[in-house]
């Protein structure tokens, strides 16, 4: 089984070296660099004033651009169509009649999506963090790197499940989920936001980057949706979420029927 997953993983990586995909990766890496560079260029050193405020702005931007936007978009593009792409090209049946073929394809593509998204995110991060000139480049780079390493598998797992639940509308469902849950509900200061990846990542950012938001009473009112649990708690929650979601995707896939040729037959 592990060998089968590995075979799919290697095959997907080989197939990924195409100009469109490479262009996407370069775009994903370049976008945060471009935005941070633009802000840095627009806001001159004098206007940056208090270093702490500039640092906070940069951390929020880096978080929003890399562990959120780049990994979300990257995993959405590669993970959610894991099954639908096979169904659309009618190749699913070739894979499904192999021993544990469906499961191997699902997990192999999941791993390929995660490992395909992480490099551009880290490249972008490695260029964007020094560009931000926050004064503690290494610390922020290390914090963001850990966030990327958690964010990519977590979002990929969510999109993987959505792709299995509704393969024909996987992208639409993934975008809807992202907008509703990760960008809206995650900001609601209630128990429900603890079920979102965004909440966990946001809380970890505050902890690992030692943001001063929590010490300011007025800002605390605005940012009340940050968790107060220790970082290990959030990390554990994300790892459990990743394992549960990938397991659920496998179970769901094995239970579902994806008949081919029925259109011309029944």
């Amino acid at each position, binding site marked *: 089984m592990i060998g*089968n997953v590995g075979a799919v993983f290697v*095959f997907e990586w080989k197939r990924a070296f195409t100009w469109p995909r490479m262009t996407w990766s370069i775009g994903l890496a370049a976008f945060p660099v471009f935005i941070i560079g633009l802000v840095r260029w627009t806001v001159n050193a004098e206007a940056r004033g208090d270093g702490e405020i500039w640092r906070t702005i940069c951390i929020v931007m880096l978080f929003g651009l890399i562990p959120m936007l780049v990994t979300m978009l990257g995993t959405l593009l590669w993970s959610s169509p894991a099954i639908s792409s096979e169904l659309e*090209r*009618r190749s699913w*049946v070739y894979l*499904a009649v192999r021993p*544990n073929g469906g499961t191997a394809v699902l997990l192999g593509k999941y791993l390929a999506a995660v490992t395909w998204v992480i490099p551009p995110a880290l490249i972008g991060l490695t260029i964007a963090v020094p560009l931000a000139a926050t004064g503690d480049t290494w610390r922020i780079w290390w914090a963001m790197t850990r966030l990327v390493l958690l964010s990519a598998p977590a979002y990929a797992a969510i999109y993987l499940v959505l792709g299995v639940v509704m393969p024909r509308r996987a992208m639409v469902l993934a975008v809807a989920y992202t907008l509703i849950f990760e960008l809206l509900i995650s900001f609601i200061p209630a128990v429900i936001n603890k079920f979102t990846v965004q909440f966990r990542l946001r809380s970890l950012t505050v902890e690992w980057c030692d943001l001063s938001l929590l010490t300011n009473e007025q800002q605390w009112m605005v940012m009340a949706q940050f968790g107060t649990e220790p970082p290990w708690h959030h990390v554990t929650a994300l790892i459990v979420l990743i394992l549960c979601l990938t397991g659920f995707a496998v179970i769901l896939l094995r239970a579902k029927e994806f008949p*081919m040729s029925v259109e011309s037959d029944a």
Partner: protein
Amino acid sequence: MIELKNVTKLYGKVIGVNDFTLTLGTGAYGLLGPNGSGKSTLLNLITGQLRPTLGTVKVLGMSPRNNASLFRRMGYCPGGEGMYSEVSGYDWVCFLQRLHGMSVRDADLAASKALELVGMTSSMRRPIASYSRGMRQRTKIAQAIAHNPDLLILDEPFNGLDPIGRHELTEVLRDWIGIGKSLIFASHLLHEIESITQSFLLICGGRLLASGTAEDVHAMMVGLPNEIALRCSDPHALAMRLMGERAAESVSIAGDTLTVATQHPLTLYEKLPGWLSLWGLRVVEMRSADESLQALFNSLMKMHRGEL
């Protein structure tokens, strides 16, 4: 080898397969039915892609649904295309063998051997997108046989093959049967199946209408009206002559085509060339209803309903 007990498959309110009961021993079988008859649904059930709404399916003594042990012993060539167009035929077949748990080296050997068997060695490194339909068909068959399965299931394998390709594939499949392997082979063309095996399963409307050898099927058709369409230079003259020879029960003419209904088609086939020569008439096209599978199935369906 295959056992279906009262299998029904519903797609919502549409019946794919209707109360299908069948037991097949080891051997080669042609699954014959017109387009839309339920062949692919049946193959989907046998390969575990679908779960029956009612009844049970066993293949090689096992339930086919998510069954890794069975998939190791089964090869399937689907009717549709569906291969990755940007990779080479070799990479595609090799990848699918890796999914059988083969090492890189074993997958390489298995893929190369299977592609050689179907005559694709010279083109196997080219992208599938550059293949002709026949070449893609051969590649599909190679992926099905490369892991040396005990049971090979082919859905319309001759689609897109030229006469030479058909002949070569026929030889491959005959050799396959010759070494004692099992084969299920779906087609809507009678002669394709007859070239491989004499055992038929006739399916129409999701039902098993008949099973047996070609002789059994023909025997069932004895005494049934058989229609033959003849496109000729003077259909009125030909109709008059055939009625005069009592070679037809009824005739109808549409344009230059004469349709003859007869209960003795073989007699007509034997005598027609001589008559045409004698009467100085020319027939440019002849289509026998016996070769039209839909007509055969229509007759069998009528028999099934007790109308004949």
